[in-house]
């Protein structure tokens, strides 16, 4: 864990090179390369489109959008990552590719958990992985509901938590905490504001 | 006047057979009042017993220990707004609870509380009872239809299908009991209710114990079928709140709904009476042939008075345990009055029993006899009522298709088997 620093995937302020300290708590931990036979296999296959890192003991692959959904299918079929724990997204408005879409996967047989991350631009869509893991159905619907990311090939992509006619995607950073779809509230609840 | 009353008390036939319309009317009124009181008492007991099964107390405020709760409920229901859905069939909507009520109450014409204590002892008594109680199903389906809403309709059709299915098994169980009445010297049985109890008296055994285990099996089949007949747990899918279809009485409110509940409780008491008459010896006290000595007669005749004395003692105990706070003053007084009322009834009954011991033909003796008959009959029916409540508290409900399967595929074959076996054994014995 105490190796040279690499630029972490999230676009924070560039971390200064940490001193190689024995205890991890002396300096803030940084993502380090994840080394494993599986990673070697994929790196040789995909080259620079795939980056494998480890942060605080949790492995993740940071891949190019073009690799989705092939890498996910490979992970399920070849590496027995048969359980899709979660599909979620993060919004970085200042970045060029604003959204991070993250799949958290787990393998029962290997008792191993990993994440797959990719970055997409605002308005772009991403292939759905409902055909790979059925659980992605509602998880992707929630990502669509909260962020507005379209999933191609999803059987029934509509809002899940918010009412059907709601405008706006709340978990985006440009949606204020006090903001609401006043029009929907007025029409459906008959009141000025839900606040 | 006194002679008139005495002459009546001395008769050994029911008013129906004697052609005495006046007394028949009196009997009908007494039965009507009695059943209404019984339904009110059932309501209270159900709520309290269910609550105690569920480790809570039940109604405690409306009257001491909730004793006035059923009256409050009845008043509330009478004063509620009478809602009739606009699209409902008005006349049919109005008449449906009446059909159910009529069917439930008409059955009481033949229920024997004693050897001559019945409105009329038809010689087709049991057939009459089965037939008229089936008419209750008509009231239900009419109620569901008249509501003009598909949830009550589905619920009503289910209730009706359930009642009809279990009537077959019920009927066959009844036939086995009737078969047993023919095991006498003349070889002829009887369908009359009083005749059936008298057959048990002659044969010296309650039919539940006859040809063990056949009598017991027939009784058990009837006991299960009668729960399904009255739509009680565990066969109450049609009126369960947590299911989608809320039952045939969804659209009814206020007094009309209370009529349905009245019909349901009355039907419960009616089918329990059939079970008691056919298998449990009707009005007979335990061991009438074995313990025949006058001393035993006297002991058993003290039971009504002692029962009321026990109830009075419980009420008195409750009064003593009431908190001595001014808030509880009225409740305390009320419960005390109730306890003394029960106590005075107990005293009266004991006096009659004691007085009836002396001379066999005095008024007191005849009163005592009549009271004894009614008492034992009502006690046995009360045990069944408690069982109804116990079942409701304990068991989950059957899904509707499982319920129908039990009725047709389990009860019907067993009751057929019991009937055939009873017939074979009866022929062999005689």
């Amino acid at each position: 864990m105490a190796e040279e620093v690499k630029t972490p995937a999230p676009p924070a302020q560039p971390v200064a090179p940490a001193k190689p300290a024995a205890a991890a708590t002396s300096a803030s931990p940084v993502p380090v390369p994840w080394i494993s036979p599986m990673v070697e296999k994929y790196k040789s296959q995909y080259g620079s489109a795939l980056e494998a890192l480890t942060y605080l003991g949790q492995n993740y692959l940071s891949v190019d959008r073009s690799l989705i959904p092939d890498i996910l299918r490979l992970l399920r079929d070849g590496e027995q990552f048969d359980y899709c724990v979660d599909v979620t997204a993060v919004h970085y408005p200042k970045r060029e590719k604003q959204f991070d879409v993250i799949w958290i996967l787990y393998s029962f047989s290997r008792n191993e958990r990993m994440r797959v991350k990719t970055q997409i631009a605002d308005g772009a869509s991403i292939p759905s992985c409902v055909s790979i893991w059925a659980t992605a159905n509602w998880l992707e619907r929630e990502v669509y509901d909260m962020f507005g990311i379209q999933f191609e090939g999803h059987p029934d992509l509509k809002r899940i938590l918010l009412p059907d006619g709601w405008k706006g995607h709340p978990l985006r950073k440009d949606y204020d905490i006090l903001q609401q779809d006043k029009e929907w509230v007025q029409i459906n609840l008959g009141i000025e504001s839900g606040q | 006047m006194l002679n008139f009353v005495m002459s009546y008390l001395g008769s050994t036939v029911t008013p129906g057979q004697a052609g005495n319309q006046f007394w028949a009317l009196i009997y009908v009124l007494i039965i009507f009042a009695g059943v209404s009181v019984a339904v009110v008492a059932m309501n209270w007991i159900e709520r309290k017993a269910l609550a105690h099964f569920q480790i809570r107390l039940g109604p405690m405020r409306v009257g001491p220990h909730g004793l006035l709760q059923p009256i409050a409920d009845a008043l509330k229901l009478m004063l509620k707004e009478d809602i009739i859905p606009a699209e409902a069939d008005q006349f049919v909507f109005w008449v449906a609870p009446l059909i159910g009520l009529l069917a439930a109450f008409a059955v009481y014409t033949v229920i024997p509380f004693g050897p001559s204590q019945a409105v009329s002892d038809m010689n087709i008594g049991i057939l009459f009872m089965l037939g008229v109680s089936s008419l209750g199903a008509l009231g239900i389906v009419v109620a569901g239809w008249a509501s003009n809403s598909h949830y009550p309709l589905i619920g009503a059709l289910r209730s009706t299908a359930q009642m009809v299915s279990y009537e077959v098994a019920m009927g066959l169980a009844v036939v086995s009991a009737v078969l047993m009445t023919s095991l006498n010297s003349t070889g002829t049985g009887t369908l009359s209710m009083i005749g059936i109890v008298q057959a048990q008296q002659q044969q010296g055994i309650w039919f539940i114990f006859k040809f063990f285990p056949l009598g017991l099996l027939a009784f058990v089949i009837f006991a299960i079928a009668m729960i399904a007949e009255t739509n009680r747990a565990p066969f109450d899918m049609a009126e369960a709140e947590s299911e989608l279809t809320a039952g045939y009485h969804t659209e009814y409110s206020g007094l009309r709904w209370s009529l349905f509940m009245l019909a349901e409780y009355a039907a419960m008491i009616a089918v329990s009476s059939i079970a008691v008459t056919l298998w449990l010896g009707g009005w007979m006290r335990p061991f009438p042939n074995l313990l025949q000595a006058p001393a035993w007669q006297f002991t058993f005749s003290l039971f009504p008075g002692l029962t009321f004395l026990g109830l009075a003692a419980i009420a008195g105990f409750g009064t003593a345990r009431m908190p001595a706070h001014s808030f509880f003053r009225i409740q305390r007084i009320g419960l005390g009055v109730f306890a003394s009322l029960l106590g005075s009834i107990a005293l009266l009954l004991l006096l009659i029993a004691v007085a009836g011991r002396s001379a066999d033909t005095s008024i007191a003796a005849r009163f005592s006899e009549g009271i004894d008959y009614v008492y034992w009959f009502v006690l046995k029916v009360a045990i069944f009522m408690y069982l109804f409540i116990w079942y409701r508290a304990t068991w989950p409900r059957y899904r509707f298709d499982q319920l129908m399967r039990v009725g047709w595929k389990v009860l019907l074959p067993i009751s057929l088997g019991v009937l055939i076996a009873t017939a074979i054994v009866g022929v062999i014995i005689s």
Partner: protein
Amino acid sequence: MNAPTNDGTQDVSKRWLSEKPYLDSNELIINMGPQHPATHGVLRVILKLDGERVLGTECVIGYLHRGVEKIAENRTYAMFNPYVDRMDYVAAVSNGLGYCEAVEKLLNVEAPPRAKYIRVILTELNRIASHQLWLGTHALDIGAMTPLFYTFRDREEILKIFERYCGARLTTHAFRIGGCQYETYAGFEKDVKKFLTFVAPKIDEYEALLTTNRIWMERTKNVGVISAADAIALGVTGPVLRASGVKWDLRKAQPYAAYSDFDFEIPVGTKGDTYDRYLVRMAEMRQSLGIIEQAVNVIPEGPIMAKVPKVIKPPVGEIYHSIEAPKGELGYFIVSDGSTQPYRLRVRPPSFVNLQALDIMVRGLLVADVVAVIGTIDIVLGEVDR
């Protein structure tokens, strides 16, 4: 469910009804509305029936959506701690445990051993309480009215312990980032031990009422079957997964808190029907009793809070941490940007994912079974909707 894409203007049931199913076939659309005694909260289930058989369901959720994840981005880490209790409000202690451990992981600190033991004891008590509530409501849905009162009465003892410990019965906010805030009160061990002897015969009582009851078995056997492969594909976790035969429990697979110190078993079912899920949860209650018994005797001495800075500012990075909540795998995915507030906090709710499986589990069943299956999945709408 191949419905046309939503243009955001029509309610689902209106769309189906406008297709006039009555004319085409024998299909019927029935709505188990948001207000329903048996849906355990505000859940709307639209059933598509063919006579009595269920062809498919659609769950409409979101009635209890409170925007917890958005709120998290506007609160500091410590301020957000009480919010997590309100998600699965029945098992609030578990929620708090997952969140505190996730933030602790992000900060790279570990709670001291004494805090870990206290956490384990309280979480297992909460697991028993959650399962008791589940049992009462599930039995009520199937028609047995009485176990509800028994389980709620017995649950009171657990809630009393919580109240004495942290002042709250249900939404406890029991743990803090770095350990526990409160020391165990005087008599805590005695109370817990008394509770253990109190509740063991009660669980036997529930079993005596239901397990061999013919009506219960008929209502729950072969109802709502889900195979292990389907369960894994649907991401179902918790007792639902274990009843389908997959022996997997996060407390054993990826131990957290002090679970690796204790000896307990993972009850597994065989068929994946409602009866198996019932048996698995009853067995889990007993296993929890065993864990508490082992833990309460040997709570180590020491501090209850680790050295955590007053202002919690985790370094930049992401973390995912999950625990075995009573309902399944409860996970927290936290993205930190170095400030005092999380940049993104995602809660992976077990009830939300398990509820997806409802559609598969009720195909071909009768309407009366839908209620039983909703009960057996054990959802809490606070967690489904957040």
